[in-house]
């Protein structure tokens, strides 16, 4: 595909180089850290990866969702979702350190001989099955991403034929079912099994909701960087921004709802096999971090996003989205941190933020954004022959009038 009609904004062009530089530099420093403490490197790296891979996963989910539901917001962001989802094959390459070093971070890889609980799960939690599933997940997700992007290119070329439309719908419907199931098991494999004694049936849902929230946040931020340039200048409308704001708001509430459900049920039940998870997270410094997450991931953003003006004005919405993205990272740290530090249920887990816990997400994030921008560049920034964007754009006032 050529993008002669829609040249990429210069800001994006500059970011392409800077993110690559930042990503490689930060990961190189982490690589040096790995020489002295390989275990800590793997822990920090897994945390960073678990967070960042949620964006391509969430993108694939929202891409399928918008093919099913329609709506202008989805058409506007479709190229972002497609570009993010096309980073999945590269994400697999970035997953390789975890795949090769899993035995150093997951306790089930070397269980104590008398641990009956881990022995019971050995059929599921063993290196071969775990790695096999990871490869399968990435292969399947990449296939989905490839098909959606291929067909989207067909739409650019020939328009949205009825045949193409029904192909989109069929793949999105079946794909969404498959995606929800595979992401659930991926989250169990990569996140929950860090504490192989603990389980929670809502875990996969919490990860999925977090993923779409992070995706929405990233896409709003990226959109705000390009909203003043073509082709967005032409198709942006205030009510579409409003829809994006409402979705961000709704996903954040959904995130809070799922987490409250898990917390309330486990806290009330107070069962020995479940409550250690929260004991490690609501006491001491981890508890303070948890309170911070409750207040600044949910309470304060909720109050701010109640405002109609914030939801409708990209200039105000984008900082909120960026903040929520940061909070997703902090929440991921709170979720994985005590288990990564090896505290499975002691009442006051020691809190120790390693410098690689900061640098690894920065490096991996920069690389992911670089990969995303490269993919984004390869196609027109909005889908062509898209009824949602064309018919209404003609007689609508632009968002920044």
């Amino acid at each position, binding site marked *: 595909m050529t993008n002669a009609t829609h040249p990429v904004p210069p800001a994006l062009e500059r970011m392409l180089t800077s993110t690559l530089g930042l990503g490689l530099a930060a990961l190189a420093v982490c690589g040096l850290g790995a020489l002295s403490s390989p275990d800590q490197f793997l822990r920090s790296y897994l945390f960073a990866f678990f967070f960042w891979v949620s964006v391509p996963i969430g993108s694939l989910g929202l891409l399928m969702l918008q093919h099913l539901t329609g709506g202008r917001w989805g058409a506007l962001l479709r190229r972002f979702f497609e570009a993010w989802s096309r980073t999945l094959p590269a994400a697999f390459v970035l997953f390789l350190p975890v795949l090769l070093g899993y035995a150093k971070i997951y306790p089930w890889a070397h269980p104590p001989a008398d641990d*009956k*609980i881990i022995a*019971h*799960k050995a059929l*599921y939690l063993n290196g071969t099955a775990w790695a096999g599933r990871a490869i399968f997940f990435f292969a399947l997700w990449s296939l989905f991403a490839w098909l959606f992007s291929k067909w989207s290119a067909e739409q650019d070329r020939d328009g949205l034929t009825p045949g193409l439309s029904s192909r989109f719908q069929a793949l999105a*419907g079946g794909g969404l*079912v498959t995606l*929800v*199931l595979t992401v*659930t098991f991926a989250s*169990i494999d990569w996140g929950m099994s860090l504490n192989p004694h603990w*389980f*929670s*049936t*809502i*875990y*996969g*849902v919490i990860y999925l909701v977090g993923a779409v929230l992070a995706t929405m946040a990233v896409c709003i931020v990226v959109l705000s960087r390009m909203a003043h340039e073509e082709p967005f200048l032409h198709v942006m409308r205030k009510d579409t921004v409003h829809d994006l704001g409402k979705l961000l708001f709704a996903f954040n509430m959904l995130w809070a*709802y*799922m987490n409250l*459900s*898990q917390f*309330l*049920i*486990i806290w*009330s*039940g*107070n*069962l020995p*096999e479940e409550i250690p998870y929260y004991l490690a997270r609501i006491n001491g410094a981890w508890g303070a971090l948890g309170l911070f997450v409750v207040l600044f991931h949910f309470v304060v953003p909720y109050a701010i996003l109640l405002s109609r003006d914030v939801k409708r004005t990209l200039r105000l919405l984008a900082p909120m989205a960026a903040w929520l993205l940061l909070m997703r990272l902090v929440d991921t740290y709170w979720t994985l941190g005590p288990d990564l530090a090896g505290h499975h249920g002691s009442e006051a887990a020691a809190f120790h933020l390693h410098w690689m816990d900061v640098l690894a997400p920065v490096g991996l994030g920069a690389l992911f954004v670089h990969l995303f921008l490269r993919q984004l560049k390869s196609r027109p920034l909005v889908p062509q022959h898209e009824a949602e964007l064309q018919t209404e754009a003609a*007689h609508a*006032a632009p968002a920044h009038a």
Partner: protein
Amino acid sequence: MASTPHLDPASAPIIAPGHTFSSVTDKIASIVLARRTPLHWFLGFTIAFSVAQLVLLTIVRLLFWGIGSWGVTVPIGWGFDIINFVWWIGIGHAGTLISAILLLLKQEWRTSINRFAEAMTLFAVVCAAQYPLFHTGRPWIAAYWLLPYPNTMGLWPNFRSPLIWDVFAVTTYASVSAVFWYVGLIPDFATLRDRAKNKLMAMVYGIGSMGWRGSARHWHNYESAYLLLAGLATPLVVSVHTVVSFDFAVGVLPGWHATIFPPYFVAGAIYAGFAMVLTLAIPLRAWYGLKDFITDRHLDNMAKVMLATGLIVAYGYAMEAFFAWYSASSWEIFMIRNRMFGPYGHMYWALILCNVVAPNTLWVPRLRHSHAWLFFISLVVSVGMWLERYVIIVTSLHRDFLPSSWGMYQGTVWDWSFFIGTIGLFVTLLYLFVRFLPAISMFEMKTILPGARVEEHHS
């Protein structure tokens, strides 16, 4: 009722072409204002009203005899009363979802189905309320146990118990749904008042319309009130069944204590609710000739919502089964084995057949567009959702931690009579509703007519 549409329902209009403002009003108002009540109405009403008498009969027996006339026993202290309560409350959810959330999501197709879906919600809540009220055995003093009020003995309900949260959740739900429904009716009451054929009807509908004259100021206030109520009702869609799920999940019983319960119960409620809306909509549109308003597109959309929520429910079952094994807890593993292969195993597999296998046929467009099949599936789902509550409640209770206190449960004839009676009550109320109130919102239907669209021209 089966038909093979020539058009793809997914892209069909949400109102049949050719209608004008007056034809919409004529068509809908005529059902209410007709002098002659159709024979089939009398027939259906008589049957439903007779069945509803079972409620009275059961209550009389219950108050004389006590709840010993029910099948509840140790260790199954929760039986039909809570199964039926959850079933009815769940059915009500589609009404709130359609009227509030779909309104906020700007889904215009909701317009022709919201009125009777909201009525269905209210009637379902009326039926649901019977069970917690009468399971106390002494309903006239139940209020003292449920409602917190400052009393001289300093007795308070247990605020940590989700059952008390339920009292608040359900009463809020009932009152907000009733207000929402009534507010939505006001402009239509005025239309009926103006078209009434005798003084009495004009007076009754006139009182209902609260002096509505349709002025611009009225409409302005009305629109903001309606939108605010929709905003208020939206959290209720989620909160009520979340609290219902807490009734179970906050306890420690295997099979009840699962963190997936809140979202999975909410999805199940919407699932059951849409099944009931379809069960009612398909005959209603055929008998009263409302196919122009409740179109194939509506049925197709509702079928898709039902399929999607059914898949979420299936996800819940899958997670329960997987984590029962993954937990490595002997209680959890026993619970799922007992549920699948124990004495109630046939109920579990019937539930899987009704709630997971059957609705997946709706992926096939041909089946989804067949009204007979859709009607059948909607009934199957209603049965499946009842079985779900039966399986969750009974199989978890009947064999808990202590084998010496295991037992079996079976509903008695009075359990069944109460349940069947409330179905009769529900249908009776629906018959009255269809006869005396406009089943489809007249003024909202006009807003989706092509003539209602104001073209904006920027010069």
